[in-house]
């Protein structure tokens, strides 16, 4: 790929991801993050919250399994209560009460953007996954509201009330306008190393097939700065035209020193870059490395030009059309007979 096209693709993908993370232009009303036991979606959610905080978006946190209110959230709504889990309509009305009403078109003030974060959709998927679309839809009264929801893809769904209804996962993946699948960067690097050597890829967590083990080990000490704490984010963004854009990124969550995490394309990461540098021109003549010199000096070049190749006369075209004439040099004992070749 020509360098300009590659750079263009890179900047285009990064811009797309930034647009999604910063909730610009109402890019994605419903964003779904799929995670598993090996890698939690929490760093990505924190990234969303940090950026929303910077752009002064109101953050409503609907908690189904988080006890403490995260520091960036403005409003914390727990979904559990002493009398049992709260029903969906109660949750929806509670959330809607915190969202500002849509401003009328006559007012010129910029409307308040709202970000609703649902920390896990799994409890809401039972017993009626078919209620999810209306629940999620009711949470968006105006176009300035966006929902970021996490779904744990490795929690098996409970036995459904109706076995003919689609599963909750298929319902919400169908609904979402952007889907992020997170996985752990150190594990992805391990797998890539094994693939490069054509060895079997290592399994983590439940794949280790050891009874009693269901989360893989993660070692931070000793790994390089570019791998530690990184997350591989596979983005699938569905545009309004229906076209889906898929791309893989690496996200380094923000630490104390920086507010916003660093993102880069997966193919740009040093561990994943292809070994051949695609520079375009100039790489056609790669000199082989040998212990003797393979080049030519000037005298050798001139001599080479002056060598007369044997059977040079045969190369001139006589008109026979068969490539070359046969040149025959008579020796001492040869006997040439004129009539020999007559038919």
């Amino acid at each position, binding site marked *: 790929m020509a360098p300009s096209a590659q750079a263009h693709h890179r900047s285009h993908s990064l811009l797309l991801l930034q647009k999604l993370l910063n909730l610009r232009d109402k890019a994605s009303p419903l964003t779904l993050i799929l995670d598993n036991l090996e890698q939690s979606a929490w760093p990505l959610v924190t990234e969303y919250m940090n950026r929303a905080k910077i752009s002064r978006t109101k953050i409503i946190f609907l908690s189904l399994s988080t006890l403490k209110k995260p520091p960036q959230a403005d409003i914390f709504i727990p979904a559990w209560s002493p009398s049992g*889990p709260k029903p969906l309509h109660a949750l929806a009305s509670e959330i809607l009460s915190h969202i500002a009403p849509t401003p009328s078109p006559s007012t010129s003030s910029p409307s308040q953007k709202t970000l609703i974060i649902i920390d896990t959709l799994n*409890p809401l998927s039972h017993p009626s996954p078919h209620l999810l679309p209306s629940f999620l839809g009711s949470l968006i009264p105006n176009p300035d509201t966006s929902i970021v929801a996490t779904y744990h893809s490795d929690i098996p769904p409970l036995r459904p009330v109706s076995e003919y209804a689609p599963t909750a996962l298929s319902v919400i993946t169908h609904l979402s306008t952007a889907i992020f699948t997170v996985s752990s960067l150190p594990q992805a690097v391990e797998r890539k190393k094994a693939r490069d050597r054509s060895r079997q890829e290592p399994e983590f967590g439940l794949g280790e097939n050891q009874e009693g083990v269901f*989360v893989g080990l993660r070692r931070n000490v000793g790994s390089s700065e570019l791998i530690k704490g990184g997350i591989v984010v596979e983005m699938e963004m569905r545009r309004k035209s229906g076209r889906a854009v898929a791309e893989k990124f690496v996200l380094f969550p923000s630490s104390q020193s920086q507010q916003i995490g660093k993102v880069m394309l997966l193919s740009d990461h040093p561990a994943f870059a292809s070994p051949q540098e695609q520079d375009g021109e100039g790489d056609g003549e790669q000199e082989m490395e040998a212990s003797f010199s393979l080049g030519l000096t000037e005298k050798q070049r001139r001599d080479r030009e002056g060598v007369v190749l044997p059977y040079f006369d045969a190369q001139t075209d006589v008109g026979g059309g068969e490539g070359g004439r046969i040149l025959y040099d008579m020796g001492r004992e040869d006997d040439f007979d004129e009539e020999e070749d007559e038919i």
Partner: protein
Amino acid sequence: MSRIRPELLEPYLGLPSEAADLTLLTGILNATPNWLVFRYLHSLLKPSSSSSSSVPRGTASTQGGQHQQAAGRDDDDEPEEPPAVCLVSFLRDFAFYQEGLGKLGVDLEACGRKKGNFVFADGLSSLFLPPPPLPPSGQQQQQQQQQQQWKKTMVGSRTEDIRRVILEGIATLKTGTAAGNQQGKKVVLVLDGLGLLLLASALDDGGAGAGTDVNRVEVMRNLLMELRQNVYSTIVTLQADEPLIVDPLTTLETDHSHFVRTVTHQADTVVSLTPLGTGAARDVNGVLRIVHDRKRPEAADDREYLYHVGGDGGVRVFERGQ
């Protein structure tokens, strides 16, 4: 190496530095986490046994096995109330814990009766039995109740009742602080064998009404969240046997797998016990794997150690290759 409190385990025992912490201990049939529960209880009920135990759990993270003694102690750490423990067990009765902790040097009776920082809720003896008839006279009942206030029994299997008994136990611990003490007691709730409650009963919907179709897993989840809200930190023990976690087929397996994975997602620390992958050995019982919160990618390293439980209850925890 101490057999009562192995040094390699030290950073993970004791009171966690952050509130609302959830620790999940899992084991399988061949590798029960009982000895681990004893160690946790010991570290909470008898913190004066070693100086490093008052170091909050979260501070020793970056160094892994080494515990920072002086650096971790906060300056404003006046002699505060020792943590209180509310132990709820669905698998074992009180005598088991008393014997196990007696070997480690902790007297549970004394803790419960005199010091007031231990409450035991028995979920084994009467769990599915009908409630006993009420005693006739009120005075006798009051006396009995006062004597046995630190030992509660759960009767019946309704979530309402179970919840009520546990919350009563926690309230007893919280109100038992000395008068004039500003800081409330930090109560640690230990739920041993919580999986049994899910597996063995089609729980009543806890008062949500007969018409609603509330699944027992939802009820359990709600119960766990609510209990966690009332205490400083929680330790939960669950079974992680393969049929109960991987590829569930029956409703029971699906529910249990769902619940265990949900709790794992919520947990800040997961300690799993597994048998050795290579078979049985004379001096190693199994592998102990400690996994930290996935939500914080820069959290401490995960660790894996080998352990061996001796006949007298002592435990050796060591690294591979020793």
